[in-house]
């Protein structure tokens, strides 16, 4: 399996999904050899993680600058900071890195014993396709997000698009994390619908210790936005809805947790609307702080413009906080006990936020039922689907 990040060394839902999926696969008696592009300290006993050791002949671990959610700009920034102190082994840009990962992918594949190749998203596509070509083994490409999600349909990066398309075309099965994403793969990449299968995501269930509730909760109602501040996540719609909420329900605080290229713009928008005193910008949160944010909120809102799956609503429900999510998300296909809206329907979004703030019974009902429902999202089920897909491709069926 080709991945590119793994908890705790991850910056988003992707690494978390890889951890959950591989654990689920292990529970389903599938042996996983997990290849990472970056050397990290990991303590995982249920899968074999291959790293290249310094000086060793088989360089499985590819020391690269690729990280999740890399963009060309970010890569270049990181590169310039690092290039001085590191030996000159990095490629000139992120695409060269992807190429380099691709070359080593074939070497790794030739020296390991396995049945199928399972790879995640565009960054691993070249490696996976190279591995397929070198070994003749079947390839399952798992799509967690497409370029159209990341870019919000504006300014799709052609180079990335082409790598994605190449990967999908070479794959024997393309796994989409939702019907929402499946549709994009078929429509935007022209992939044969028969080979695009949906496997919805799940979440890990080690229990967080629920910390004490933040002080702010005692006097004010809290509505939370948590996610990267990018076009894809719809922070601008959240602010517009907040403005409308305040007209009907003034005694509330909106917490925005996350960072991203729309951070300044979002802060300006809040100031221009004259509601800065009702907003708290908490910055990028990790681990326990994320939980604390969920816990102090009365409602978590995920107004994503384009969300292939969306794990955060499930995390929020795990923390006893009800959720309002956009229909433009994969998770909305499988989660029932929540409120749903179209991301552009500001009135409807505000209407639903106010309802949760006003009616404690609604909040309780969503919380209790949601907490119960979220239990069905464990990784053994999607992993089993993957194992079935492996069996199918190995039998020559698609």
């Amino acid at each position, binding site marked *: 399996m080709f991945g590119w990040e793994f908890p705790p060394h991850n910056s988003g839902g992707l690494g978390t999904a890889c951890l959950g999926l591989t654990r689920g696969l292990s529970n389903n008696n599938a042996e996983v050899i997990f290849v990472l592009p970056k050397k990290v300290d990991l303590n995982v006993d249920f899968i074999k993680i291959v790293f290249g050791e310094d000086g060793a002949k088989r360089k499985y671990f590819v020391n690269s600058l690729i990280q999740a959610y890399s963009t060309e700009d970010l890569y270049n920034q990181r590169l310039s900071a690092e290039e001085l102190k590191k030996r000159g082994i990095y490629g000139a840009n992120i695409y060269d890195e992807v190429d380099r990962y691709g070359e080593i992918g074939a070497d790794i594949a030739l020296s390991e014993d396995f049945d199928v190749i399972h790879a995640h998203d565009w960054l691993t596509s070249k490696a996976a396709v190279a591995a397929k070509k070198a070994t003749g083994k079947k390839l399952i490409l798992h799509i967690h997000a497409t370029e159209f999600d990341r870019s919000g349909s504006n300014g799709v990066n052609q180079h990335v698009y082409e790598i994605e398309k190449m990967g999908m075309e070479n794959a024997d099965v393309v796994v989409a994390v939702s019907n929402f994403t499946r549709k994009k793969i078929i429509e935007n990449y022209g992939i044969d619908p028969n080979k695009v299968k949906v496997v919805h995501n799940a979440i890990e269930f080690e229990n967080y210790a629920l910390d004490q509730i933040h002080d702010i909760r005692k006097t004010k109602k809290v509505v939370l936005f948590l996610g990267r501040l990018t076009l894809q996540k719809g922070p601008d719609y959240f602010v517009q809805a907040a403005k409308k909420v305040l007209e009907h329900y003034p005694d509330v605080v909106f917490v925005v947790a996350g960072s991203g290229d729309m951070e300044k713009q979002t802060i300006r928008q809040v100031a221009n609307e004259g509601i800065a005193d009702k907003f708290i910008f908490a910055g990028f949160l990790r681990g326990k702080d994320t939980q604390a944010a969920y816990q102090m909120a009365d409602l978590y809102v995920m107004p994503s413009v384009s969300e292939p799956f969306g794990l955060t609503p499930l995390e929020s429900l795990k923390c006893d906080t009800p959720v309002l999510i956009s229909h433009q998300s994969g998770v909305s296909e499988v989660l029932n006990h929540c409120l749903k809206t179209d991301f552009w329907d500001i009135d409807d979004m505000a*209407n639903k936020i106010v*309802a949760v703030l006003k009616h404690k019974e609604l909040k309780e009902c969503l919380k209790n*039922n949601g907490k119960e429902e979220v239990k069905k999202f464990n990784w053994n089920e999607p992993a089993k689907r993957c194992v079935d897909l492996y069996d199918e491709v190995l039998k020559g069926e698609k």
Partner: protein
Amino acid sequence: MVSLCFYFQVHQPFRIRKYSIFDIGKQKDYFGDNSENDTNNIKVLKKVASKCYLPANNVLLELLNKHPEFKISFSFSGVFLEQCEKYAPEVLKSFQELVKTGRVEILSETYHHSLAFLYSKGEFREQIRLHKELIQRLFGVTPKVFRNTELIYNNELAREIEAMGYSGIIAEGADHILGWRSPNFVYRPRGTKKLKVLLKNYKLSDDVAFRFSEKSWKEHPLTVPKYVQWLNAVNGCGDTINLFMDYETFGEHQWEDTGIFNFLRHLPEEFLLHPDNNFKTPSEVINSYPERGEFDCHNFVSWADIERDVSAWLGNEIQHAAINRVYKMGQKVLSTKNEELIDKWRKMQTSDHYYYMCTKWFSDGDVHKYFNPYNSPYDAFISFMNVLHDLELDIEKEIKQRTQNIKVTINQPEGTFIK
């Protein structure tokens, strides 16, 4: 001898439109959705009329004309008849034709198909009175047998109904109350002197209403001879077989292509082949057969779901919040004596609104979803509460106006004129 007693429930609620906080104070037509949504009441009524009411009435009229022994009964909610009068007079007319044969009994119920008995006895009696007046006006008959919304029943209800002068009442023949006893006899409700209770034979009723087109059912397909054989088997161990079901069974729940209309069309003929069999209306069953024991039902029972309780309407926090708020408004809204406001308030009492908020099996996506015109129980709740908010504002406004008017009258010295 065994009698077959049919009772069909006919009901359509005034569904409330999608109603947001931004509609409060502006949109006064709560039930007038004219979009393509399933909250468009006229659209739903016309659809069900063409799939069920009109074709099923045709079959029944045909049967009444062909078999002088054939008899049936209906219970119409007032809100259904009100919608027929306004939007589908041809449907009302076709029901009136059936009743004109003299072999169709009409049962009593609450005009607004409400859960009022559980919250306000006064309101409950008033809605029965309104319903009685409507039935008298539209059909020229007076109901003698009462059935409560969704067959919700207990001993206390039976006593109340007896005090109101009815001769009979309808209830679910639930196993957990009957025990070893059969629903195919007439019983005396505990605590009543003369009232008789007719119990639904849920097995034979549900064979038609729910299982008729169920391919995984081992008896599928259900033919008329097979079904009549089951009915005949009651001969000698029962007086009456009470087949109670939603009228929408015919053509709406069971589509025409399942053969449901043909099943109905040929049932009476086959049933009457047995010389000991006959048809009776609920009142006739009550007058013909003595009670065979006491029916003791302390807790509420209904005909819904496997639970046979009231949890489909009153099972979660949002349902309780919604209905408590409605009945809390009662005294105030009645004090305005404003008919329009009172009417709106009563339409908010219809049980369906609370049913749409049921979250019991929502996780699995089930029958409740099929019957739900809203995207989720939560959406149903939000629109409902926003409407109540608007209604409350109007009630307050009305009360304020009235008190001001009274003040004006008091301040005005006698014998002078207000200019």
